[in-house]
């Protein structure tokens, strides 16, 4: 009833768009991704955008989300132009995007990831939100780290995060790819509910049956343009197919084989992650397709059959002989070629020339005793380039200068030149324009006609229909149906996919949600802290047991003083490591602070000039940190190189200022640090306050979350509109500030302007950070654990010098601890699931 009132109202007054993109152009280098796209988005309507890979859908979403800046064109929201769109402003006015590849920070928990978009969301609201968007199978506790979730669960978090800000416009980019039927139904119910509440939904998918079910309005994209837009009821599925492809299918695809030759390639009982006991065959002259919903095992299977990913069991047979050995090397040698779905990452070598790329296919044929015949290589490469009509200026052009279609042809040429017996192709035309696409189909068919076997995995039903002689449908990691002859149609593939998944029993939650208790404990944030505390107590107690003088008051005082120094310098190090950088200059900068103190806070100076001098030293270190951060961030230089140069340069300055140790530092500096407060020296109290304060900021505030998110996943941060450059500079500034404080404490302990005191602290700070369980790649680390790491290092160091003053032991112990801790954490966290990007 309500429906009819609404629609009659709509008929009376034309619906007002909530968002309106007008004449949007965008190019990447020579490639025109969008050529003047208009998109009108209306509240309470599902607007589907369909088109092939590379048609420009993702670029359009990027621009609507403020992640990409359009070259020209305007965006209006609620009839007001959006001046300078960026991810944050677009989210705030009410645009949310569910990305095809979830943009999450893996080192943060589910709740923290949600809070990156909606800072005020609490745990209970987050639970409710997750329950609203996910079936019980996919729900997860919100304190779970995202790295531990299955791919489907990550999509749920991505969806929940998009809804957490109560958007007016929701973009969904291929949202059902990793989902199973029940989860898809849940999503569709959610979409209906949002639609009822007046949310505008833009639904991007290549699954026409979904579009058919959901869409009120359909826009078809091709080659960067919207070539047609209609109300959904005014267009048929076959019209859409022809619009997407650009011409009738018969003109795109080569004729199929009349028959096929003898058995060529066979898998028996092939089992691995994601697929289970797969038996299948490919004959000579035959093109066999693999179909299935994303995550049903077909991709994992074809990769394992090529040896790219490992398999657990089963045989691969070629020409009746079982292939011995594993890995791509053995399989290629036997005659199995492979073309990956991710051309840039796993296919071509963009920064090598076309000749070198092709040459990798036939190095054996053009080399003698391991030496390459360059003339032979060039002529063979030129031959392939001509035969495949690869458009390039020369075979000496870098592959990055070729278009996507020509890169794909080069990849195809390389694999064919290796003269395989069977060619496995994962998504043969992903990111390839329509013209080159047809050529690739012709080449694949020509190869099959020459007697090759071809196995193709594709998510595009039309492609499978046009290209394949036989199609195998995957579900739950097994082949559940085979279509051949006239049954190979997009419609029957879709139907087979659906019936296969509908019949699925209540599935296991995700593919790999894992974690026995022990593993979870080993991988937790608190684990290092516990271990470090226990080890520290053991070392202190053990040494005390060996020598009763070890824990004398004076010795404890000295241990605590140095603990403060190590802690400050290690947290300085952690500050940069958390955002994915590193600061090798920490030690030298602390050393320069000591030298600076010998000039600015000399023995005999009065109280005020000592305070002034201390402030100048600390501010100087802070300024140096800022300078370093700005250099690294805004010139995009590798932090490691800049800071290692800094390390040497600062030491040079120290040596220039104090060629030998000279210049006594005022005793008041160390005396002040030793003032007892609550039974502890002032310096230690300050250390504990800083540790507690920074830990709270890092784990309890929005800034702390953003800080960790930048280190954990820079891309996700970009999409969320986090200003990673400012945070990077802040990280180096913080590092400089903490090094300055640590440096002054060190100055108090050393008491004289010695030019070389600080240098060992760079290594020590890294050791401490690694011991504290921080990830050197960024995103993960705890200040508290770092403090306990510092305690362990200081205890070890004091104990070893108490037992044997030889510096050789000291170095070896620190080095050994670094390696052992790094190896331990690397292995303990090895099991986290990395979804394929």
């Amino acid at each position: 009833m309500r429906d009819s009132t609404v629609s009659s109202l709509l008929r009376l007054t034309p619906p007002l768009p909530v968002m309106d993109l007008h004449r949007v152009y965008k190019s990447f280098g020579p490639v025109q991704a969008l050529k003047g796209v208009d998109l009108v988005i209306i509240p309470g309507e599902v607007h589907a955008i369909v088109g092939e890979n590379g048609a420009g859908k993702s670029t359009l979403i990027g621009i609507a989300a403020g992640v990409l800046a359009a070259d020209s064109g305007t965006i209006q929201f609620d009839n007001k132009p959006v001046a300078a769109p960026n991810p944050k402003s677009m989210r705030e006015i009410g645009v949310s995007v569910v990305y095809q590849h979830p943009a999450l920070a893996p080192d943060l928990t589910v709740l923290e990831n949600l809070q990156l978009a909606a800072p005020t969301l609490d745990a209970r609201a987050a639970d409710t939100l997750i329950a609203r968007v996910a079936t019980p199978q996919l729900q997860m506790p919100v304190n779970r780290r995202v790295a531990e979730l299955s791919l489907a669960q990550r999509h749920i978090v991505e969806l929940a995060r998009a809804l957490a800000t109560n958007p007016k416009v929701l973009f969904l980019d291929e949202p059902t790819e990793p989902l199973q039927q029940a989860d898809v139904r849940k999503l569709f119910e959610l979409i209906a509910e949002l639609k009822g509440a007046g949310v505008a939904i833009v639904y991007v998918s290549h699954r026409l049956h979904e579009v058919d079910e959901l869409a009120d309005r359909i826009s078809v994209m091709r080659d960067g343009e919207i070539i047609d837009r209609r109300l959904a009821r005014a267009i048929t599925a076959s019209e859409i197919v022809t619009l997407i492809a650009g011409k009738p299918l018969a003109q795109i695809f080569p004729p199929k084989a009349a028959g096929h030759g003898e058995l060529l390639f066979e898998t028996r009982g092939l089992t691995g992650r994601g697929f289970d006991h797969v038996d299948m065959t490919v004959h000579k002259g035959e093109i066999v397709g693999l179909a299935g919903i994303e995550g049903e095992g077909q991709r994992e299977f074809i990769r394992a059959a090529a040896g790219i990913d490992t398999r657990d069991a089963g045989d691969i047979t070629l020409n009746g002989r079982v292939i011995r050995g594993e890995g791509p090397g053995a399989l290629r040698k036997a005659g199995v070629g492979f073309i990956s779905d991710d051309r840039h990452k796993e296919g071509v070598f963009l920064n090598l020339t076309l000749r070198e790329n092709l040459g990798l296919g036939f190095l054996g044929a053009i080399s003698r005793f391991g030496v390459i015949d360059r003339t032979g290589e060039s002529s063979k490469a030129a031959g392939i380039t001509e035969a495949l009509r690869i458009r390039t200026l020369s075979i000496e052009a870098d592959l990055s200068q070729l278009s996507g279609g020509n890169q794909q042809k080069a990849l195809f040429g390389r694999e064919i030149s290796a003269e395989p017996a069977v060619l496995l192709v994962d998504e043969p035309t992903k990111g390839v324009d329509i013209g080159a696409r047809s050529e690739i189909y012709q080449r694949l068919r020509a190869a099959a006609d020459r007697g090759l076997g071809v196995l193709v995995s594709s998510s595009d039903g039309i492609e499978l229909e046009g290209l394949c002689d036989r199609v195998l449908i995957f579900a739950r990691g097994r082949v559940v149906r085979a279509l051949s002859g006239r049954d190979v149609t997009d419609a029957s593939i879709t139907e087979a996919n659906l019936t296969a998944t509908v019949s699925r029993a209540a599935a296991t939650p995700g593919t790999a949600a894992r974690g026995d208790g022990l593993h979870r404990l080993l991988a937790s944030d608190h684990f290092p802290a516990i271990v470090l505390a226990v080890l520290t107590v053991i070392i202190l107690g053990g040494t005390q047991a060996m020598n009763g003088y070890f824990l004398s008051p004076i010795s404890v005082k000295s241990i605590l003083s140095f603990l403060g120094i190590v802690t400050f310098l290690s947290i300085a190090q952690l500050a940069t490591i958390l955002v994915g950088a590193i600061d090798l200059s920490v030690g030298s900068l602390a050393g320069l602070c000591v030298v600076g103190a010998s000039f600015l806070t000399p023995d005999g100076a009065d109280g005020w000039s000592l305070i002034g001098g201390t402030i100048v030293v600390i501010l100087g270190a802070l300024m140096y940190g800022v300078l370093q951060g700005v250099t690294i961030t805004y010139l995009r230089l590798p932090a490691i190189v800049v800071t290692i140069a800094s390390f040497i340069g600062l030491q040079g300055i120290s040596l220039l200022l104090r060629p030998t140790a000279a210049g006594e530092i005022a005793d008041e500096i160390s005396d002040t640090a030793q003032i007892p407060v609550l039974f502890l020296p002032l310096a230690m109290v300050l250390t504990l306050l800083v540790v507690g304060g920074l830990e709270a900021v890092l784990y309890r505030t929005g800034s702390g979350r953003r800080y960790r998110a930048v280190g954990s996943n820079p891309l996700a941060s970009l999409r969320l509109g986090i200003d990673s450059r400012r945070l990077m500079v802040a990280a180096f500034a913080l590092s400089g500030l903490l090094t300055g404080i640590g440096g002054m404490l060190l100055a108090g302990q050393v008491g004289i302007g010695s030019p070389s005191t600080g240098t060992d602290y760079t290594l020590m700070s890294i050791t401490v950070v690694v011991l504290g369980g921080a990830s050197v790649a960024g995103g993960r680390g705890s200040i508290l654990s770092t403090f306990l790491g510092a305690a362990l290092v200081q205890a070890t160091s004091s104990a070893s010098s108490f037992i044997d003053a030889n510096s050789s032991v000291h170095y070896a112990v620190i080095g050994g601890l670094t390696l052992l801790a790094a190896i331990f954490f690397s292995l303990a966290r090895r099991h986290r699931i990395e979804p394929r990007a």
Partner: protein
Amino acid sequence: MTDGGTGRLRLPSLGDLADLPLAAKSFIATVVLVVIGAILAPSTVNSAAILSTLPYFAILAMPSIGQHLVIQQRGLDLSVAGIMSFTAVVVTKLPDGSTHFGTVMFWLAAALAVGALCGAITGAIVTYLFVPPLVATIGMNAILYGLTYWVSTGASVQAPPMLVQFFEGVILYVPNTIWVLAIVGAVVVFVLARTVIGRRFIAVSVNPAAAHAVGIPLKTYSLLTYTIAGFLYAVGAVMLSGYLVSPTVLCGLPYLLGTIAAVVVGGNPIGGITKGSVVATIIGAFFLTYLAQLVTALGFGGSAEDLADAIIVISGVGLPEVARRLRHA
């Protein structure tokens, strides 16, 4: 001599001045520096001065080739100082002043083997235990410092006279250190440019995932890279010991930044991705050696040299980026 494929041996022609290969760029930079040096301090370009610079150049270039290989494989080796210091102790302290050819050769071989072994251990930790190269090499470096102090007991020792004689020697007017560099450099350049192993090595550095897909054993290449690098550091340390006669205990220390600087000054990118050029790194090593001599000739001490090195490295990575920005601005 057109070697278009790798751009490694190509000399600049007028046609492609805009897109010069790395080796040519670093060569031009070096010529410019030497010209400036000749004006500021003419004494740095007389034949005696050049001849005395050459051994230091060779000694820096040798480990720089190792560092180059590691950096090209997307790593960074901070164990240069430890490996060089420790192998220098092996070749000076352990022969115990022997003049017996066999003994000296034994410890020479031992030093080279130890270098390769240390590299192999770091390589194994990086490759099979998935520890980031930075942490693995920094830890190995510290352990080797410890070993160096322990074996040397903190005192420097004279190298065996035989080594001193050889590395201070000259054949056909060219210092022997340069001969050693020429042979090792030529082998590395040839292997990278002309052999299947070299091509695969480059493929791994440019795109490891794609290299895996074409069946190249990544782990073997990674392990071999660190092993060869360790070997080259040891060769450098042996040359250094022979030339300096009695190297200090931590004689490898300057080579930590020095080798990275040579790679950077050669214009090679940090972290693989593009091909890089070993010849450019070797030229980079000459640039830095001459710069150090110039700084000294101008009356600044060793610490100013540190400062100059630091500035050179930061400009080396920074200037191309600044230039790129200016071009696009």
